[in-house]
């Protein structure tokens, strides 16, 4: 018989002790792995989403809101900006690429984004099926949106006003037609329905007349009006060039030179009615806030971990005292004190391993659950991944903790008086 078998039998012979120690260990491992995964994946996904663009230009307001709405597509826009205002930016020597985006409608909660095909290239999104949109009201569909909405090539749908699903007014005159389906990119593109800029404009042109109807975000667009140069100014250009009255939600910019990062945001913020926001900076700020929450939870998990180490220690200490006679018996079988120590160590380490595996599994179930929620609420998907290097380090820490707890609890083995212990009744 192997000592391991005996250690295992010893471990399960006290189910309540086992349960308590395991519960604590499982809980702390689950918390730590869950938070690590959540912050890691969220951060990773955010960074992947903002990676293609260095700067966003939009209506004045909160820069974080601008980034969230225009790059990550989770918040409402700060307002609209005029095409003519961005003309100079598009040709600026520091700018490598400037992609206008415009939106304001949704289909069953999935945003319809009007933009140029360059947008898809920025995220390296390729068509899995069908073709790119060529005229207004043709739309290509991101992979997650497609599967959630169950859209096929050739399907048509009516968009509705605003960014969230509602029973409100729809644009019945202008059904969108699905002409292409995108391959999964693991970015925000997967959640979008993408069409050309004109689709967004035309959908709203026909709703009525007058400038107010260009307000593409319904009640959220009020800030925009205050930022306008004024209606008089507006009117002068209306007849000359249609483009100049057109509005977009924001302009996504990739710099050619790092100098752009230094000069352009300041220039825009000080000299125009628009604002420039740097996605990298804003997301770092956001992650800093989230990071504080994550550290708090990690702190709690760490405390639970220490308690679980203590519980392993106490339960082993108790068991070793209770089993003094059994240990003495094993000594008469010819076992050395080191082997008895090994027995106690194995018991502690078994517990640690089982606790880790259970906790890790629970953590992953948590990630899966969070993913369900986040997909429904924000369209963000978390992946349930295999073990990661940081988690293996964490496992090493737990094993070390169990090791120390077991050794400390087992020291009395070396002081065991075999003859006396066996004679005690």
């Amino acid at each position, binding site marked *: *018989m192997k000592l391991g078998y005996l250690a295992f*039998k010893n471990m399960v012979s006290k189910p309540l002790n086992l349960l308590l120690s395991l519960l604590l260990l499982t809980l702390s491992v689950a918390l730590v792995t869950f938070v690590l995964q959540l912050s890691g994946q969220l951060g990773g996904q955010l960074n992947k989403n903002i990676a293609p663009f260095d700067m966003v230009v939009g209506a004045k307001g909160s820069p974080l809101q601008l980034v969230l709405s225009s790059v990550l597509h989770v918040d409402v826009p700060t307002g609209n900006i005029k095409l003519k205002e961005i003309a100079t930016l598009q040709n600026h020597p520091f700018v490598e690429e400037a992609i206008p985006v415009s939106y304001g409608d949704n289909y069953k909660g999935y945003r319809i984004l009007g933009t140029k095909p360059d947008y898809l290239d920025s995220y390296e999104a390729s068509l899995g099926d069908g073709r790119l949109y060529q005229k207004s009201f043709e739309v290509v569909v991101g992979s997650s949106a497609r599967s959630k909405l169950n859209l096929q090539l050739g399907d048509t749908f009516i968009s509705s006003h605003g960014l969230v699903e509602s029973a409100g007014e729809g644009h019945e005159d202008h059904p969108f037609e699905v002409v292409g389906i995108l391959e999964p990119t693991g970015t925000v593109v997967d959640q979008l329905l993408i069409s050309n800029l004109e689709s967004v404009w035309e959908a709203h042109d026909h709703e009525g007349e007058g400038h107010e109807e260009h307000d593409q975000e319904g009640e959220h667009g009020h800030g925009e009006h205050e930022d306008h140069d004024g209606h008089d100014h507006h009117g002068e250009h209306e007849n000359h060039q249609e483009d100049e009255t057109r509005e977009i939600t924001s302009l996504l910019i990739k710099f050619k030179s790092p100098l752009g990062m230094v000069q352009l945001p300041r220039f825009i913020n000080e000299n125009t009615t628009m604002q420039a926001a740097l996605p990298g900076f804003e997301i770092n700020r956001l992650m800093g806030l989230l990071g504080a929450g994550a550290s708090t939870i990690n702190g709690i998990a760490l405390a639970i971990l220490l308690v679980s180490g203590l519980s392993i220690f106490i339960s082993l200490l108790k068991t070793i005292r209770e089993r003094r006679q059994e240990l003495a018996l*094993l000594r008469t079988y010819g076992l*050395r004190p080191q082997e008895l120590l090994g027995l106690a160590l194995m018991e502690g380490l078994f517990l640690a391993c089982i606790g880790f595996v259970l906790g890790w599994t629970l953590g992953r179930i948590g990630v899966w659950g969070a993913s369900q929620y986040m997909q429904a609420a924000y369209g963000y998907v978390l992946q349930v991944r295999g073990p990661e290097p940081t988690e293996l380090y964490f496992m090493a820490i737990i094993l070390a903790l169990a090791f120390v707890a077991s050794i400390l609890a087992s020291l009395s083995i070396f002081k065991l008086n075999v003859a006396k212990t066996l004679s005690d009744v």
Partner: protein
Amino acid sequence: MIETTNLAYTYNGSEALVFPDISLTPGKHLLVVGPSGAGKTTLLYMMAGLLPPEKGSIAISGTELNSLTRKELYKLRGEHVGLIFQQYHFIHSLNVSDNLRLRQSFPTNSNDKRRREELAKRLGLTEYLHKKTNTLSQGQQQRLSIALGLIHRPKLILADEPTSNLDDVNCVKVVNLLKEEAEICESSLVIITHDLRVMSHFQNQIKL
């Protein structure tokens, strides 16, 4: 085979216990009798190498215990000594069969199922092999304790009151079993007892 010479042991604050020399060739038996406190169990533990004697020496199968390293002593004890305790000691997390298996596996790592079944049968434990040790009756526990002392065919069998909880029928069975095992395995058998039923079965006796 066991030989002791000039053994003595002193417990704190009491008179020294002095033991008569013992010399047993393989297959021979010895009954140790004496009143409580005469040092019967102390003698047993010294012979098992569990308690170093204060004076004198012990040799098992010609090996002087004093000359052994600790590791060698543990090995000798595991391999050649079979202890039958007055107070029963088992591993409670294991069932009867696994307790026997555990004793077999140190230090020689054998796993002789036939031996376990045969011994269990002779001690009337067959139907209890898969029971937990704490569900056994006193008598059954004593018989299991005896099985644990014999299972690995030791060269020296040391039994401390092996029949105290047995009825007359089982007492005779156990005495015969101990004698048979000692004969088959050519073991030296030392029994400590004050059981009159046992005394009549053994000629070779010493009194402490």
